[in-house]
C-alpha cells in the first residue's frame, strides 16, 4: 500500500483508457488531430486510490456535438457498464479558459492536467493557459480559494479533532494538501511543501486502505472501520492510527495557516495603506486585525505576555499572530509558580471568550505553548476516545465544553471556576486503569494551585472534576421524587456554590458531547434535580460588607479627603477616604475612568458619613500614571460637579463600543431580598467593559437610592459586583423597590453592551 500502488493503478487505467480511446476512434468519424484526452485532479497527478473516480477532460477543436456524443459514448460505455465512476468534461480550449476564470474547482483541476491520448498540442495549450492564468490572476483566485477552504472546514469539520473524519474533505485533509500545492504553483508566496510529505503519505495510505476495507470510494473513516484499517496498516490499534492521523492533519493545517498568513502579508505589502499599530497593553499590540507582540519587545523578562496577548486576541475576536506564537515558543520563559494573578486572569479571560478562543488556543497549542504552561495538557492532546457519544478528541472536547461554558457564566457566582473546570474536566482521561473523574481531580488540585488559585478554590475545582458526571447520572438513574435522592445529592455536593458550578459544567459538557448525550429531556431532568437539591440547601450567602482597619478608622476620624496611591506591579492600589454624598461612587468612578484606570476589584464601605474606598486598578499603557495629588484634586472637583467628566466618559464608552467584540450573554442583576441586613444586596454579573462601574453607580444614584458599600471583582473578563444599597434615609429597600431597581439596572446595562 502506498504511492507505488497508486501510481501503478493510475498507469493501468492509462493503458485501459488508451485502448478505449483508440477503439472509439475506429468506430467514429473523428480525426485524432481534432481531439485530446487528459486526466485532471488526483488522476492527473498520477495517483489513484482504489475507489477514486476517473476525472477526465476531452479537449476538441470545434467538433460537432453529434460527433462528440457518439465518440464519447463509444469510448466510455464499457466503463459505465462496468460500474466505474467516470467524471468527464468536454470543452474547446476557449471554453476551458472561460470556465476556469470563475470556477476555482476547474482551474485547480487543470493545474494537475496530464495528457493521455489524442492530439498532445491541444492538451499542452490548456496546460499552459491554466498555469499562466493561475499565476497572473492569482489575486482574483485567492478569495475563491479561501472561501472554498472555509466552506469545506465548516461542512466537514477538522480532521485532527473528529473521531470519524473525512480524509479528503475535512480541514487538514487531502483536499487541503492539493490546495496548498496549487498555491505553491502560483509562486505568490514561498511554501515549504516538504513539511507535507509525511502527512500526505499517511492520509493517502489510510484512504486507500479504507477503500479496500469498505470496497467503496467513501472517504469518511467511521469508528466501525478504524480497527480493520489500523490492523491492515500494522498500527498497534485504532487509537494509535487516529493519533497519527491527528498529527498529520495538524501539520497540514499548520502549513495552510502559515501559507495564508504569508499571502496576507504579501497582499498588505502591495497595498499602499500602511496598517496602524495600536498598543493595547504592555507588549501587546493590534496590527492588521491581529493581536501580536511587537518584534522589538523582549519577552524574556515578561513570561506573562503570551497569555496577556492571547486574552486580548480572544476577547476581541481576533487572531493571535503566528509570528508572535513562534517567537514565544523560541524564547520561552516559564511563568513563576504560582502564576501571578494577572496571568491567571488572562487565562480565564482567554477561556471565557467563547467561540473566538479556539483559534487563539490552537495557535498556542501548535507551538507547544499550552503544554509548556500546563504539562498535564500534553497527555490529552489529540487523544481519541472510542465511544458512540463523542465526536471529538479529548482536548478538543474540553475546548468545546469551555466555549459552551462561557455562555453560562451568568448562572454562577464563580465564572472563573466554571471556565477552568470546563477546560480541564476530562484531563484525567487516557490513564490506564484509572477512573478519569477521580484521577482528573488528583491532577487539577495541584494544577489549580500552580495557576494561583487559593486552596479553597483548588478544592472546589477538584470537587467539580470528581463529580462532573454526578448530576446527569443521578437524574437519569435515580428517583428524583424521592427525598432520599435529594438528600444524597445534597450530602455529596455540599454547597449551593458547587451545585451551580456542577450544573453549569453538566450542561456545557453534555452540549459539547453531542445531541445523543444531551437532549432537552435530559436537561430537564438534571434541572429538576438541581432545583430540588437547591431548595433543600441553605442557598448562597453573599459576603458581608467589608470591615475597616484601625488605620482606616483613624483616617475617617480626621474628617478630610485623603487619596493614597501604592504601586503594585501592573496594578495600582488606591485608597480614597471621602465624605459621603449621594452619587459619590459615580463621581469617584468617573475620576478613575477618565484617568484610564480600569477597576479590577474594589471594596468600599461608608461609616459615620465617610466612605472608605479601596481600589485595585490596572492602568492603560498608553497614558502616564496620574499622580496622587492630581487624583486628589480631581476627586475634590468631581464631588462638586461631574458634568465635564461625564462628557469625556461617554465619549470613551462610544469609542470602545465601535471595537469588534465577541458575543456575550446578557447581564444578570439580582436583588437578594431573603437576607435581612441593614442594606439591600444587589448582585451584578456581566461582561466587563470600560467604565462599567461608573455606569452602574450612576444608574443607582439616578434611581434615588444610596450605595453604602460595594465589593467589586473581575474574574477574567467577567465582572461580579455586590452592592449594598439603602434608601436616602439609610434603611433597606422594600423587596418590590429592590426588584424594580434590579430590573431597571439590567435594562440599562443590557442596552449599552
Amino acid at each position, binding site marked *: 500500500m502506498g504511492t507505488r500502488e497508486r501510481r501503478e493503478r493510475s498507469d493501468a487505467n492509462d493503458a485501459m483508457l488508451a485502448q478505449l480511446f483508440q477503439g472509439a476512434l475506429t468506430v467514429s468519424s473523428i480525426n485524432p488531430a481534432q481531439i485530446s484526452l487528459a486526466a485532471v485532479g488526483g488522476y492527473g497527478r498520477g495517483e489513484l486510490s482504489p475507489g477514486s473516480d476517473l476525472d477526465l477532460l476531452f479537449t476538441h477543436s470545434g467538433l460537432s456535438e453529434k460527433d462528440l456524443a457518439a465518440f464519447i459514448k463509444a469510448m466510455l460505455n464499457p466503463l459505465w457498464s462496468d460500474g466505474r465512476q467516470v467524471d468527464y468534461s468536454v470543452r474547446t480550449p476557449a471554453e476551458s479558459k472561460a470556465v476556469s476564470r470563475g470556477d476555482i474547482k476547474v482551474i485547480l483541476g487543470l493545474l494537475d492536467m496530464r495528457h493521455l491520448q489524442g492530439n498532445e498540442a491541444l492538451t499542452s495549450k490548456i496546460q499552459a493557459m491554466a498555469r499562466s492564468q493561475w499565476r497572473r490572476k492569482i489575486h482574483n483566485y485567492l478569495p475563491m480559494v479561501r472561501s472554498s477552504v472555509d466552506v469545506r472546514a465548516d461542512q466537514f469539520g477538522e480532521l485532527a479533532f473528529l473521531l470519524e473524519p473525512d480524509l479528503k474533505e475535512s480541514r487538514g485533509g487531502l483536499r487541503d494538501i492539493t490546495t496548498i500545492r496549487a498555491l505553491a504553483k502560483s509562486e505568490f508566496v514561498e511554501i515549504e511543501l516538504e513539511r507535507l510529505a509525511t502527512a500526505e503519505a499517511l492520509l493517502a495510505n489510510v484512504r486507500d486502505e479504507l477503500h479496500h476495507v469498505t470496497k467503496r470510494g467513501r472517504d469518511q473513516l467511521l469508528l466501525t472501520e478504524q480497527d480493520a484499517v489500523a490492523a491492515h496498516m500494522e498500527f498497534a490499534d485504532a487509537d494509535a492510527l487516529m493519533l497519527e492521523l491527528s498529527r498529520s492533519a495538524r501539520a497540514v493545517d499548520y502549513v495552510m495557516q502559515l501559507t495564508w498568513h504569508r499571502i496576507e502579508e504579501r497582499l498588505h505589502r502591495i497595498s499602499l495603506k500602511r496598517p496602524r499599530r495600536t498598543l493595547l497593553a504592555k507588549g501587546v499590540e493590534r496590527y492588521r486585525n491581529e493581536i501580536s507582540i511587537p518584534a522589538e519587545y523582549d519577552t524574556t523578562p515578561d513570561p506573562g505576555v503570551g497569555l496577556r496577548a492571547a486574552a486580548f486576541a480572544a476577547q476581541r475576536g481576533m487572531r493571535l499572530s503566528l509570528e508572535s506564537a513562534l517567537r514565544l515558543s523560541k524564547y520561552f520563559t516559564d511563568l513563576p509558580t504560582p502564576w501571578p494573578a494577572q496571568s491567571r486572569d488572562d487565562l480565564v479571560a482567554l477561556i471565557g471568550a467563547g467561540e473566538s478562543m479556539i483559534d487563539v488556543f490552537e495557535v498556542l497549542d501548535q507551538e507547544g505553548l499550552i503544554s509548556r504552561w500546563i504539562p498535564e495538557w500534553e497527555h490529552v492532546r489529540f487523544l481519541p476516545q472510542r465511544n458512540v457519544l463523542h465526536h471529538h478528541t479529548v482536548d478538543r472536547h474540553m475546548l468545546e465544553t469551555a466555549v459552551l461554558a462561557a455562555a453560562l457564566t451568568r448562572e454562577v457566582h464563580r465564572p472563573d471556576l466554571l471556565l477552568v473546570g470546563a477546560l480541564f474536566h476530562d484531563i484525567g482521561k487516557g490513564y490506564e486503569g484509572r477512573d478519569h473523574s477521580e484521577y482528573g481531580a488528583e491532577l487539577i488540585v495541584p494544577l489549580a494551585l500552580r495557576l494561583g488559585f487559593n486552596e479553597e478554590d483548588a478544592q472546589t475545582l477538584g470537587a467539580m472534576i470528581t463529580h462532573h458526571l454526578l448530576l446527569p447520572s443521578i437524574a437519569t*438513574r435515580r428517583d*428524583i*421524587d*424521592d*427525598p432520599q435522592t435529594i438528600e444524597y445529592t445534597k450530602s455529596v455536593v455540599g454547597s449551593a456554590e458547587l451545585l451551580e458550578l456542577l450544573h453549569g459544567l453538566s450542561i456545557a459538557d453534555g452540549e459539547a458531547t453531542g445531541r445523543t448525550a444531551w437532549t432537552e429531556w*435530559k436537561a430537564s431532568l438534571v434541572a429538576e434535580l438541581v432545583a430540588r437539591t437547591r431548595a433543600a440547601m441553605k442557598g448562597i450567602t453573599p459576603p458581608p460588607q467589608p470591615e475597616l482597619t484601625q488605620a482606616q478608622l483613624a483616617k475617617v476620624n480626621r474628617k478630610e479627603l485623603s487619596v493614597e496611591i501604592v504601586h503594585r506591579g501592573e496594578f495600582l492600589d488606591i485608597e480614597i477616604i471621602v465624605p459621603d454624598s449621594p452619587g459619590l461612587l459615580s463621581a469617584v468612578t468617573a475620576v478613575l475612568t477618565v484617568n484610564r484606570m480600569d477597576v479590577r476589584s474594589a471594596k468600599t464601605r461608608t461609616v459615620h458619613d465617610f466612605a472608605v474606598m479601596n481600589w485595585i486598578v490596572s492602568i492603560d499603557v498608553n497614558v502616564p500614571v496620574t499622580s496622587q495629588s492630581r487624583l486628589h484634586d480631581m476627586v475634590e472637583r468631581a464631588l462638586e460637579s461631574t458634568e465635564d467628566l461625564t462628557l469625556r466618559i461617554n465619549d470613551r464608552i462610544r469609542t470602545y463600543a465601535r471595537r469588534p467584540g465577541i458575543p456575550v450573554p446578557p447581564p444578570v442583576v439580582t436583588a437578594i431580598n431573603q437576607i435581612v441586613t441593614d442594606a439591600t444586596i444587589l448582585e451584578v454579573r456581566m461582561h466587563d467593559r470600560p467604565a462599567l462601574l461608573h455606569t452602574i453607580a450612576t444608574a443607582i444614584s439616578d434611581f434615588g437610592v444610596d450605595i453604602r458599600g460595594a465589593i467589586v471583582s473581575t474574574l477574567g473578563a467577567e465582572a461580579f459586583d455586590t452592592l449594598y444599597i439603602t434608601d436616602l434615609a439609610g434603611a433597606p429597600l422594600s423587596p418590590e423597590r429592590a426588584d424594580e431597581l434590579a430590573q431597571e439596572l439590567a435594562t440599562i446595562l443590557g442596552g449599552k453592551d
Partner: protein
Amino acid sequence: MKLITAIIKPFKLDDVKNALNAFGITGMTVSEAMGFGRTRGHTEVYRGAEYTIDLIPKIRLEVVVDSADAEKVIDVIVKAASTGAIGDGKVWAVPVDHIVRVRTGERGLDAI
C-alpha cells in the same frame, strides 16, 4: 400479537429491562418522552415533602409480544416499574396486525 407501550419513570428503565430480559424478552424500543397525567399543576406531597409538578420527563418503552404473553408481560412491567408513588406511569396494549423483520422478510410471530 400485541404492542405493549409503557410510560415509566426514567430511573426505572434498568429494572424494567432486566425484568423483561428475565422473562425472555430481549428486544424493545426505548425513547425519551415528556408528559403529564392527572398530577399536572398540583403541588404534591410525597413522603412528607412538597413538590410542584409540571411537564415531566419519562421513558417510553415499546415491545411487541405474542397475544398469549401480553397479560404476563404487562404484569412484569408494572411490577418492575412500581414505586407506589404518584407518577409511576402507565402501561397499555394494542393489537398488532402485521410485523415483518426487515432483514429476512420473516413475518408474524417469527419476526418478534
